[in-house]
C-alpha cells in the first residue's frame, strides 16, 4: 500500500507511452495485462484507504481530540474522498480504454455489449447525481434549522423563550428529516403551521397548495433512485473465462465503482424514492481488487437495513448526528421548566456543542460536496461523449446510444 503514491502521478503518462509502443508491436497482450493489473491494484489501494479510514471511526465521540482528524464514516468529507477516488479511477480507466487504442478493439465482442451497457449506467448515474445534488438542499435546510437551535440555546443562561425557539426549529428539523418520501417528497420545506391549524379556511387551501407543489425534484415524478440503482446493478456481471483477462475486466471494475458510488450517495443523502433500495452487490468475493469495496458495501448495507425502516433521513454522518442530538434536545425542551437544573444544562450544552460542530462541518462541506458531485457529473458526460466518439469512428454505432 505505501507504493500507491509512487505510481499514481505517472500512470497516465505510462499508459500513453506504452500504448504507442504497443501499437507498433501489434497488440502486445502482456502490456495490456500489466495495465489492467495496475488498474486493479490502484482500485484495491484506494478503497483500502477508504475502508481503513472508516474503521478508525472515533469510538469515543466525545473524546474527539484534535488528533482525531479522521473523517467519520459516511461523513461529508468521507463522501468527498469517495468522489475523489471515483474521479481518479475514472481518469485511469478512460486512459486505458481509449487513449491511443485502435477503436476497432473496443467494438468487438464482448465489449460491443459491455460498453453500451456501461454507458447506459453512466446516464442513470447522471440522474442520480442530480437527485442527490437536490437532496443536499434538504440537508442544507436541516443545517439552517439546526443553526437556529444553536443560536437560541447559545444565549446563556437560557429561559423558556430560547428553549421554545430551539424546540420549534428542531421540530421543523425532524419534520424535514422524516417527511422524506411522502407525497413524492414534499419535505423540502415543512412549515410549522401546526399551532394555528385551523387558521382560516382560505389559507388552508393555500397551505395544501403549497404542500402539493412543494416537491422540487430535479427529475420526473415517477423517477426512483432505488429503481435506477437496481437497473444499474441488474446486468452487472463479472467477466468469466477468457474475458476476465481482457478489457472486459476494467469495464466491469469501472461499472462496479460507479454503481458503488451512486448507491452510497443514495443511501447517504436524502433522495427521491429510496424505498426498496437494494443492498445486493453482485461482485464475486474472490476478486482481490474488490475486497475493500465489498467490505464497505456490507458496512453501509448493514447501516441501511438498520435505519431504513425508521423513515431514515439517510446515512450521512452529520445528519445522523443532528437527528440524535435533536431527539435529546427536543426531549429536554419538552420537560423544560424554568429555571433549568444545572445538570441538565450541562447535558444540553454538550449536545449543543455537538450540533454546532456538525453545523460548522455542514456549512464548510455541503456546497463543496455539491460542486464535487457536479464535477463528477460533468466528467461522466465527457467520458461518455469521448467513448461514443471512438465507437462512432468505427462506424459500428449507427443508432444513438442512450
Amino acid at each position, binding site marked *: 500500500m505505501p507504493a500507491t503514491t509512487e505510481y499514481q502521478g505517472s500512470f497516465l503518462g505510462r499508459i500513453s507511452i506504452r500504448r504507442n509502443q504497443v501499437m507498433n508491436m501489434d497488440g502486445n497482450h502482456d502490456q495490456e495485462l500489466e495495465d489492467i493489473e495496475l488498474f486493479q491494484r490502484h482500485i484495491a489501494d484506494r478503497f483500502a484507504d477508504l475502508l481503513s479510514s472508516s474503521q478508525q471511526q472515533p469510538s469515543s465521540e466525545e473524546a474527539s481530540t484534535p488528533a482525531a482528524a479522521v473523517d467519520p464514516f459516511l461523513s461529508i468529507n468521507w463522501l468527498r474522498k469517495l468522489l475523489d477516488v471515483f474521479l481518479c479511477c475514472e481518469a485511469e480507466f478512460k486512459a486505458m480504454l481509449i487513449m491511443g487504442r485502435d477503436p476497432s478493439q473496443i467494438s468487438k465482442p464482448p465489449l460491443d455489449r459491455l460498453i453500451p451497457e456501461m454507458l447506459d449506467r453512466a446516464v442513470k448515474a447522471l440522474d442520480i447525481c442530480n437527485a442527490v445534488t437536490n437532496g443536499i438542499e434538504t440537508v442544507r435546510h436541516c443545517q439552517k434549522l439546526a443553526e437556529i437551535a444553536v443560536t437560541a440555546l447559545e444565549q446563556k443562561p437560557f429561559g423558556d423563550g430560547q428553549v421554545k425557539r430551539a424546540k420549534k426549529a428542531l421540530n421543523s428539523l425532524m419534520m424535514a428529516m422524516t417527511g422524506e418520501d411522502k407525497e413524492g417528497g414534499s419535505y423540502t420545506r415543512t412549515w410549522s403551521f401546526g399551532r394555528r391549524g385551523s387558521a382560516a379556511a382560505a389559507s388552508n387551501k393555500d397551505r395544501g397548495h*403549497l404542500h402539493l407543489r412543494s416537491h422540487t425534484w430535479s427529475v420526473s415524478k415517477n423517477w426512483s433512485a432505488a429503481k435506477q440503482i437496481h437497473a444499474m446493478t441488474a446486468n452487472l456481471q463479472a467477466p468469466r473465462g477468457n474475458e476476465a483477462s481482457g478489457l472486459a475486466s476494467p469495464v466491469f471494475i469501472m461499472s462496479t465503482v460507479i454503481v458503488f458510488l451512486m448507491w452510497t450517495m443514495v443511501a447517504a443523502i436524502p433522495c427521491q424514492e429510496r424505498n426498496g433500495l437494494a443492498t445486493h452487490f453482485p461482485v464475486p468475493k474472490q476478486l482481490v481488487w474488490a475486497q475493500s469495496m465489498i467490505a464497505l458495501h456490507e458496512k453501509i448495507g448493514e447501516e441501511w437495513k438498520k435505519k431504513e425502516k425508521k423513515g431514515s433521513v439517510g446515512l450521512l454522518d452529520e445528519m445522523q448526528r443532528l437527528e440524535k442530538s435533536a431527539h435529546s434536545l427536543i426531549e429536554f425542551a419538552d420537560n423544560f421548566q424554568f429555571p433549568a437544573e444545572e445538570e441538565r444544562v450541562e447535558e444540553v450544552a454538550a449536545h449543543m456543542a455537538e450540533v454546532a460542530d456538525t453545523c460548522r462541518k455542514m456549512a464548510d462541506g455541503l456546497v463543496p460536496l455539491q460542486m464535487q458531485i457536479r464535477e463528477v457529473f460533468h466528467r461522466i458526460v465527457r467520458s461518455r461523449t469521448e467513448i461514443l466518439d471512438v465507437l462512432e469512428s468505427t462506424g459500428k454505432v449507427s443508432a444513438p*446510444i442512450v
Partner: protein
Amino acid sequence: MAGYQSMIPIHERDQHVIAAAHHILKALGATKNLSDDMRKILSDLDVHLSIMSNGGFIEVEKRLKRAEVKVLSWESSQTMIWDSGSREVSEYLEAVVEIQTVKQSLGGLSLIENGKVKECLYRANSVLQMAMSRLEEELVHILVQQKQYSEPEYMSFHSCQEDIVYDESFVSVEEETYQRVSQNTDDVSGEHIVELVNPHVIPDLKTIANVMFASNYDKEFCEAFIGVRKEALNVVIVGMEKYSIEDVLKMKWCTLSSEIKKWIWEMKNIIRVYLVSEKQLCNKILGEFGSVSSFCFVEIGKATLLNLLNFGEAVTMGSIRPEKLFNLLDMYEVLSDLVVDIDSLLFEEMGSYVRIEFHELLRKLGNYARATFFELGSAIVSDTCLKPLPGGGIHPLTRYVMNYIKALIIYDHTINMLLEDQEEKDCSITCQFLLITSSLECNLHKKSKLYKEDALSYIFLMNNIHYMVQKVKNSELRLFFGDEWIRKHNGKFQQHATSYQRATWSSLLSFLSPVSSSILKATTPKERCKEFSIAFDEVYKNQTQWSITDPQLQEDVCIANLQVIHAYRSFLGITRITDKHIKYSVDDLEKLLLDFFKGSRRSSHRR
C-alpha cells in the same frame, strides 16, 4: 434566612449609589464639549440607571406586562393580525418593539444577577419568542395570500410540426419554413419586472423583516421567506414537465423538439421576468441587510435554474443529427442572449456556481451546434441510394439541403460566430454554403448515373440544378451565393436541357434527315417515317412518365422539343408520303409533345 435579610441593606446601598450616579451624569451632560459617542454612552447609562432605581424598574416591568398582554391576546386568536387592520398591526409591532427595548436594556445590565431583573429578562425572551413565531406565521401567510403572478401565456406548441424532418431517405421534406422560436418570443426580449406579491404589502414584509432581524431572528425569516418564494417559482414553471436525462435521451425527436421550444420560452421567462422580479423583491425587503438579500435570491432561484440547465445538458448529450440544428441554434441564441442577464443577476460570489454552469452549457451548446452544422456536409456525402428517383424529378435530398440552408439564413450571424471560434475550419457561412451545394451537386451527379437513359439523367440534373437556382434566386440566399453563382448554374441546367434534347432527338431526327445517313441509305421515306413513328412512340411512352415540376421549365423544354415538328413537317413536305402511311400528322405530333413530362403532375401529388 439570614442571607435574605442581609440583602436588603445592600439593595438600599445600591439605591444610594444609583442616585449619586444620576447626579454625576447630569453634571457631565451639562458639559458643552462632549463628543456624540460620549453623549450616547451617557444617555444609555441614564436608561440603565433608571431601570435600576426602584421606580424605574417597576416602570419597565409594567411596560413588559403591557406588551405581553398584547402578544398573548393574539395567541388564542384564530385570525391573522395582518388581516385585522392596520391599527392592530401597528399596536402589535409597538408591543414587539417594547419587548425588544426592555430586553436590550435589561440584557445590558450588570445587575443581571438580580433575581427580579433576571426573571423579567426571561419573561421578555419568552414573549419575544412568541411574537417572533407569530411574525413568522404572519410572514408566510402574507407571502402566500398576497402572491401574484400572471399565468404565463404559452405559445402553442405543435407536437410535431412541419419542421425540416430528416429521415434516412430525406423523403418527408416539403417547402416548409422553419419557424424560429426566438423570434416568436420577442415579448420577453427585455427585462420585464412583474409584481410577485401585491405591492401594497411590501412595507409590511419589510417591517416584519426589520423586526425579526433586530431580534436576531434573521435565520427564521430567511428560511421562511426562501421556502415560500422557492415554491412560488416552482409553480411558475409547471408548464414544463421535468424530465430525467435518461428520458430526454430516449425521447423521439419531434417530442424533444417541442420540449426544446418550451424550454427556450421558459428560460427567457424565468430569467427575464421571474428572476429579475424575484431579485427586486428580495432587494426591496432585505436590501438593508447587505448580502442577505442576494443570499436569499440565490437560494430561491438556484434549483429552478439548475433544473433548466440540466435539460440543456441532456440535449447536448444526444446524437448529432442535422435536423436538430435549428433547435440547437435557438437554444444557443437564447442562452447567449441571456448571458448578460445571468451575469448581472448572479454577479456575486454566492451565485457563481450557477453562473459558471450557465456559461458551461452555452459553450457546450455552441460546440454541439457547430458539429451539427458540419454534419450536414457528411450527411450529403454519405447519402447514397441504389435506385434512381423515378421520373427524374427533384430529389428529396436537393429539397432538403436547399430548404435547410435557406432556413439557416436567419441564423447567419450566430453561425458565423460559431465558425469564427473554430480555427482550422475557417471561412464564413457563405463559404460553408458553397461547400454544401457543391457536395450536393457532386452527389446529384452520382445519382444521375443510376439512370439507364442518358436523356433522363439530364432531365434529373436539369430539374435539380434548376431547383437549386430557383431557391437561391428567390430568397435571401442570393445574397450569399451571388449573381456569379446564379449565372453559372443557370448555364449548367440549360446545358443539361440541351444535352437532353440531343440525347432524345438526335437519333429520331436522323430518320427525318433529308440527307440519308449511311445506315439508313437503303430505306425508303415511307419506312423511315414508320421507324420514326415507332421510335417516337417509344419516346412518348417514356417521357410522358418523366417529370419536370417547374411549369415554366416544363414549358421551355416542351417548346424546345417542338424543333422536331419543324423537321417532321419539312420531312413530310419533301417526301410527300401519302396520308395512309403517316401515323401522326404534324398536329398530332404537336399535341403529343405537350403530354411530355406529365409524370411530374402525378408524382408531385404523390405526397
